[in-house]
């Protein structure tokens, strides 16, 4: 034992290294920068990136006196090593000419060398000038322009990553899960770009600290707020307006940010002469708040909160509102140059309310999911080549699937509340094996316990209830424990190219139960139990990455194969709304998805943008559907192409355009018809055997800077969504011809053609 310790001591000393650490920030606002690169000039193998709190730790060989710090959009910075100081905080100056910066060779090399695959990072500055529907900048919608991510289409909330379902994406806002990340049925996302620092998407090989969903993690970080000065910025648009206020707290020790947004689409309805539109309510608002404070050199406290609410209403007759609320309290503690810790306390709540007051009825329906979580993460920078990350998390879920109150009769009927505990422990190791080879591997052990108080059901072979078992409060009805191994490896072929491979297993313990074409805010989150098993995905991926012309261009090609277990679908005529024993309405099976993703990006110069193309297939095999044969999943789209371009015309003008093309999603069309109960009824045979027509559209936008002086900046943005008015199919339904009722015709509904937008943005 003593010999081992001596060996360890000698080995460390023999390295003759110093370890330095610190944070990297924006010099103007004080915002911490995530994934900024710190490297030793001339020493290719030595470098690191900052974590999500802007913290880095790096072991440097003795004799090194200067280090380079770089981040896209900022002038390069330097660290000068002086004496025995080990703490170096860096402030990078933002570059005026956002797109003129030549990305340092080391930054590219670092990205090429990192084993993390299937990852994309977006910042609001990257997408600020892109055209969007109604002029509302939306980082989440821009994700669908990247390979492997498909939007669910207009009027639909949600997105699909590598063939997975819309409920398989973990969306985190400063660590808190957001259950319904869309407003107004998918027209806007819940993220106000003004408040966002960056968004990181993991499509595969998720780091071991993330878990709970099968297909992706969308990690959104809020801005901390300007530490130096007070600022107000905002925008006024046709459909929505926003306002943000930020500033320092406590003389440079902290800052705060408050951001709000509201639509007023219903204001236009009030102007209508159509009586039935006049009294309708259609709006949403959201509020983001954040404050942070440094309690000394080693401790930092962060508080973030989000509140969003949507209201839809038809006079007094019908009302639907839903809201998300999240709150996170985080404490960073830097033990020393080697050990960084983060402790988070998280609250997340999603609920919806439906009110119906018409004729002789007066009902209220409420459904809610509430989470309390505690997370503890450690990063341990062991020596030059090795970093360990480990931690724990525990979440308590409380779900109210549906509570109906008949207000006129004073009667309440409730589907029983569901309680559950979800937890995980993880350990991962990042290791630079040789100059060219890097490894990242780990294991996440996740577990789930379905708890009482409540009834759980046992089903017979026909799927009907055979027995009902009651569990008292806190009693455990069913537990699952699943190991989720993660593994990634990267090999540098040269300074400009690399290949990577990865494998990851993920488990998901909450299924989203929905059964309509438009993912509705009234979809229900259902925890697994003795009948419904956790979804499991195994994904392997292979990739080739290349940097061209000194980092001006980047090319990547990634191929993946994903196998899914315990996937859920519905019986014919399923009633998922008022059925407490939802298990009796479900069918189970497996899924598989595979594809090739190509991305070419131009990052510098007056003209920037990217082309992304995905070739993919996603299918399911569910016992009891389609004669137990494999069928295309609804979100299966073979070809998906996005072309994005931004051109900085002059100092004042920027124009941009996006072109999107994808072949149609799988859809079920009838194969015949008959008459029953006085109605013409469509007859269906195969599931998802047809395709919707191909979708394509062009969006254009132009932004002109108006005022640009110290103390006040403004710009005007105009855009045109669906510039050539392509009639894309939102849905295809069938009806009897009005003149000739014996004939059945197919009707295509298109939502948007030629939608203009104007937004005025200001900052002071």
């Amino acid at each position, binding site marked *: 034992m003593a010999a081992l310790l001596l060996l360890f001591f000698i080995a460390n000393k023999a390295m003759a290294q110093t370890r330095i650490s610190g944070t990297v920030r924006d010099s103007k606002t004080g915002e911490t920068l995530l994934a900024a690169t710190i490297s030793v000039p001339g020493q290719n193998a030595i470098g690191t990136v900052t974590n999500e709190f802007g913290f880095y730790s790096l072991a440097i060989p003795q004799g090194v006196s200067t280090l380079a710090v770089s981040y896209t959009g900022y002038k390069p910075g330097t660290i000068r090593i002086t004496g025995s100081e080990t703490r170096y905080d860096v402030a990078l100056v933002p570059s005026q000419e956002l797109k003129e910066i030549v990305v340092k060779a080391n930054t590219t090399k670092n990205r090429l060398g990192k084993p993390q695959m299937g990852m994309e990072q977006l910042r609001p500055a990257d997408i600020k000038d892109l055209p969007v529907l109604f002029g509302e900048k939306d980082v989440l919608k821009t994700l669908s322009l990247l390979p492997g991510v498909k939007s669910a289409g207009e009027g639909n909330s949600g997105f699909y990553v590598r063939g997975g379902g819309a409920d398989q994406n973990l969306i985190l806002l400063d660590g808190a899960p957001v259950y319904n990340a869309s407003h107004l049925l998918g027209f806007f996302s819940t993220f106000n770009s003004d408040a966002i620092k960056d968004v990181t998407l993991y499509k595969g090989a998720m780091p071991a600290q993330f878990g709970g969903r099968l297909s992706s993690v969308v990690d959104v970080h809020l801005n901390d707020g300007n530490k130096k000065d007070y600022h107000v910025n905002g925008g006024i648009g046709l459909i929505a307006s926003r306002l943000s206020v930020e500033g320092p707290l406590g003389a440079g020790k902290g800052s705060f940010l408050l951001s709000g947004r509201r639509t007023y689409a219903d204001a236009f309805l009030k102007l209508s002469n159509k009586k039935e539109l006049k009294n309708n309510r259609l709006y949403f608002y959201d509020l983001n708040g954040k404050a942070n404070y440094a309690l000394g050199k080693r401790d930092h406290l962060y508080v973030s909160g989000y509140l969003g609410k949507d209201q839809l209403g038809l006079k007094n007759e019908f009302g639907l509102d839903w809201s998300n609320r999240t709150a996170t309290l985080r404490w960073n503690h830097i033990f020393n140059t080697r050990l960084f810790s983060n402790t988070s306390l998280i609250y997340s709540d999603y609920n919806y309310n439906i009110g119906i007051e018409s004729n002789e009825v007066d009902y209220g329906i409420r459904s809610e999911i509430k989470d309390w979580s505690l997370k503890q993460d450690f990063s341990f920078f062991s020596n030059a080549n090795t970093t360990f990350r480990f931690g724990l998390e525990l979440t308590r879920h409380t779900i109210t699937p549906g509570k109906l109150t008949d207000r006129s009769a004073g009667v309440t009927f409730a589907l029983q509340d569901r309680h559950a505990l979800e937890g995980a422990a993880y350990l991962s190791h990042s290791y630079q094996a040789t100059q060219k080879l890097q490894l990242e591997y780990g294991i996440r052990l996740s577990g789930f316990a379905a708890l009482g108080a409540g009834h759980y059901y046992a089903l017979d072979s026909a799927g009907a209830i055979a027995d009902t078992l009651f569990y008292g409060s806190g009693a455990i009805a069913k537990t699952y424990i699943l190991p989720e191994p993660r593994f990634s490896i990267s090999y540098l072929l040269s300074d400009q190219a690399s290949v990577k491979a990865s494998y990851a297993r993920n488990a998901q313990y909450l299924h989203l139960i929905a059964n309509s074409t438009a993912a509705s805010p009234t979809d229900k989150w259902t925890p697994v139990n003795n009948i419904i098993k956790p979804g499991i995905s195994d994904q392997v991926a292979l990739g080739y990455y290349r940097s061209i012309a000194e980092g001006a261009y980047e090319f990547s090609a990634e191929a993946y194969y994903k196998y899914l277990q315990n996937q859920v679908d519905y019986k014919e005529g399923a*009633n998922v709304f008022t059925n407490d024993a939802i298990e009796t309405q479900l069918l189970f099976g497996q899924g598989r998805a595979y594809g090739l993703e190509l991305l070419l990006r131009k990052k510098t110069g007056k003209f920037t943008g990217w082309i992304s193309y995905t070739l993919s297939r996603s299918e399911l095999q569910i016992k009891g559907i389609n004669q137990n044969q494999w069928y295309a999943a609804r979100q299966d789209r073979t070809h998906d192409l996005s072309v994005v371009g931004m051109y900085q015309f002059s100092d004042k003008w920027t124009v941009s355009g996006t072109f999107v093309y994808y072949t149609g999603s799988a859809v079920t069309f009838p194969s*015949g018809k008959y008459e029953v109960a006085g109605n013409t009824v469509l007859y269906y*045979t195969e599931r998802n055997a047809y395709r919707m027509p191909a979708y394509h559209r062009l969006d254009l936008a132009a932004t002109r800077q108006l005022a640009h002086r110290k103390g006040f900046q403004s710009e005007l943005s105009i855009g045109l969504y669906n510039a050539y008015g392509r009639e894309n199919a939102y849905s295809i339904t069938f009806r009897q011809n009005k003149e000739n009722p014996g004939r059945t015709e197919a009707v295509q509904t298109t939502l948007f053609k030629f939608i203009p937008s104007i937004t005025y943005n200001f900052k002071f």
Partner: protein
Amino acid sequence: MKRISSLLFSLGLLPLASCQKVIDLDVHNAAPQYVIEGSITDAEGPYYLRISKTASLDADGNNLPVSNALVLLRDDLGQTDTLSETIPGQYQTSHIQGMPGHTYYVEVSADGQSFAAVATMPQPVQVDSLYLLTAPSMGKELLQPVAVFKDPAGVRNYYRLVLYKNGVANKQLFVIDDQFTDGQTIKMPLPDAEVTYTATDHIRVELQGISQAMYLYYSSLQQTLGQSSAAPANPVRQFSGGNALGYFSAHTLSSREFVVQ
């Protein structure tokens, strides 16, 4: 809740920007399937059963009647009635009488295929009254008939209401159960935005007391008709033996009528 998407459409934002057009679609037409629609009630016979086959989607007209089928209707008291074909595809009973609380079995044999179904008639529920009411529906003020009846307490009841205007049945399926209204007086409105009522119009509402199996059938049929499911499917199968669409129902009847002033 199944109508949420249509309700949201009517909220005005989407119609402002959307458009519709008829398109040509190429669908593979499946081999024709049998469609059987029959019922027995507690009113006086005869009772009818129609047999047809599905038509291809682009055909003119819906069904192709099936003739020369053997249709047997038995009750739980040992009586059997062989139905005779009067109009092509339509078969009627001769002597069997439907009674509440009894179980009825139907067997259909056509072209070498056999189908069977069972139905038990529930206890009768009477319509107490019927009146016209102007009330908001989907944002508009609509004149609509309202049927009033008392739900028997302590028993699970399922109902279908059929609305007739001047002898013509309304296509809409009005189907409810007593999950939240057991033992109460139910006031069921029957709105239809496409129908207006003027003086001398004759309105009749028929209350059918149906079985749970028929309630599930009609609910799933509403989903198929609504075309808003992400996974369109055929209504719950009612027949055993082969793949037949349609239903066999044993239900009680009660109706009220009046002439609009």
